[in-house]
């Protein structure tokens, strides 16, 4: 469905590229998780997909056709739900949907049906006449999503769709996005919440400073952690772990990473530490979390610590 080849972009006057040789693909019926900290290039990539920025180098293709050509012919095949609440606060929920449905050139009974369907999908029917700026954060996110769905896009780009919402709304939005993918929509989902990506994405891509650090199916990415023991223990120091393999110091949360040498097992390491009086409080083996993978690749946490 979506293929991006060697895409680069530099803002006027900027010393470095905001995106550098980014290539990726997203298939129908799947969710591509796009991970990256602030400044990674996610927003630039989304702006290029949304058509508000023009690619300087590289290609953006939809089913093999250049994106600009697709946008000129059928712009509603692609929808973007931006991170901001991109709707009119002074209008009601239904009035907002009607305005954007008209902008998407939906007319007559189809327009009314799509407005109704999207309100039902986002469970907003009860709030149809409520002013958008008086909705809760979660409901605003749902409205943002519902507007993106009006024209039944084939490719849906979601920029941090759960930012600032309560856990209940987050669960609802994630479930709704998974339903869309099951129905055949290609979804590009950007977030810096690893657990969300792990929960709904089929594939993930980690972006940092405009470059793709790694990408693949979730199982491929997380398998990078084979023979890796992650553990935390009060008073644990690098010299305690060095005999068992190559050691990476904690980046956040006090979790040490040891790439075990072939003659060591996790059980033996834990037993050795226990015998030295180092009580292990947390340990995982054989599988990275996305967060850990990100930190391993970038040597820094995904989210800025408060």
């Amino acid at each position, binding site marked *: 469905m979506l293929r991006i080849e060697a895409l680069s972009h530099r803002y006027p006057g900027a010393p470095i590229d905001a995106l550098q040789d980014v290539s990726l693909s997203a298939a129908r019926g799947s969710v591509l998780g796009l991970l990256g900290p602030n400044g990674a290039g996610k927003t630039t990539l989304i702006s290029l997909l949304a058509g508000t920025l023009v690619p300087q180098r590289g290609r953006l293709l939809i089913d093999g056709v250049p994106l600009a050509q697709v946008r000129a012919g059928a712009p509603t095949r692609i929808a973007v739900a*931006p991170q901001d609440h991109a709707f009119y606060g*002074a209008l009601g929920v239904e009035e907002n949907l009607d305005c954007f449905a008209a*902008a998407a050139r939906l007319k007559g009974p189809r327009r009314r049906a799509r407005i109704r369907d999207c309100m039902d999908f986002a469970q907003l029917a009860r709030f149809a006449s409520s002013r958008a700026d008086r909705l809760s954060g979660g409901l605003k996110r749902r409205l943002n999503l519902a507007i993106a769905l009006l024209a039944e896009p084939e490719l849906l780009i979601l920029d941090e769709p759960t930012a600032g919402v309560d856990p209940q709304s987050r669960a609802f939005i994630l479930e709704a996005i998974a339903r869309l993918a099951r129905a055949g929509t290609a979804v590009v989902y950007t977030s810096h919440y690893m657990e969300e990506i792990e929960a709904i994405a089929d594939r993930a891509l980690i972006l940092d400073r405009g470059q793709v650090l790694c990408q693949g199916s979730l199982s491929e990415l997380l398998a990078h952690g084979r023979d890796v023991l992650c553990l935390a223990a009060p008073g644990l120091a690098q010299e305690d772990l060095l005999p068992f393999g190559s050691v990476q110091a904690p980046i956040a949360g006090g979790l040490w990473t040891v790439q075990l040498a072939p003659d060591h097992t996790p059980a033996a390491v834990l037993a050795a530490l226990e015998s030295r009086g180092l009580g292990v409080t947390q340990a995982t083996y054989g599988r990275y979390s996305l967060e850990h993978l990100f930190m391993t690749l970038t040597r820094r946490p995904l989210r800025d610590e408060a």
Partner: protein
Amino acid sequence: MLLALIRKELLVLSRDVHGLAALFLLPAVFIVVMSLALQDYYDPPLRSLSYAIDNRDGGAPAGQLARDWAAAHGTPQPLPADWNGQLHRGTLKYVVVLDAQLSDELRALGLPTQARVHLLAEPGIDGNLLNALRAELLGLAGELKARHAMLEAGALPPPANASVAALVDAARVAAPGVRPTAVQQNVPAWLVFGMFFIVASLSNLYIQERANGTLARLRSLGVRPHTLLLSKALPYLAVNLLQVLLMLGVGIWLMPWLGGDALSLAGVDWLALFCALGAISAAAVGLSLALAGLVRTPGQAATLGPALNVLMAALGGIMVPTFVMPAFMQRVASLSPMNWGLEALLSVLLRGGGLAQVMPQVIRLLLLAVAAGACSAWLFRRRG
């Protein structure tokens, strides 16, 4: 699609209570307040000012002057002992002091070489008013001197209605039906101010849409830039039309009900009025869109829009008529688009002018509208 976007714009505007108040209530209030405050501007209250006469001359000519003045200006107040202090405080507006030698001077054949009548006014009195009172005193004294000279020369007594004052007539030249009044001056002034106030409203709403990504979203749905700009411009042209109807209504019906003069549209050249209003509206919308394209944050729009409006109004003769400004400021005023609009409307509503008289201002306003519109389209494509 365009209709839906226009409907959206009108709905958003109609729910912005502060914006509506600024667009409709503010100029209407200004019309009422300023028209009532300046009600006597075109007919100064020469005959209702409190005054006293200090007659230090016992002669008949000086007594006659005092009687003639009282006949025209009402009975004077008894001269208070502290009349100087009362003048300082403004409780007494002026005092006419008739010197002891005045009667001799009025009887003498020859022109005076020194003042025998002193007009002493309170510090706050308007300069024009003071000059008008002085001119009237001069006229009365001249009349008395002329009558005495005729008597001395043995001429026949003049007819009862004869007077030096009959020699000069003064009138404002206006089209039939048009009366120069404060309302006739203030309705155009504050109407222009109100029409340009859409600069603040439109640019503020526009910049909010750009800041929260709504404009980008509309563009990603395939809405073309010119459709978006039109969807902004057309509702505000309609807003301007409503403002015109409201302000004219205030002038025609509300002002006389409040005790002021009524706005007169008798003999107005409707085509010239329509052209002037259309050009003002086009310029205001163009300027609004250009400002919206220039500023980057809602805060900037909220500050710059009203500031630009007030500056254009202050310079353009809305708040202070340009004819009371010094020559340099009058040249500066002629740079303000509000001044172009005001002059065009005054030409039609106050001076009874037609299309030819408003055309210079209309052309300037339309050129501004085209330039600002082109600028906004370029900025829109560049910044979204």
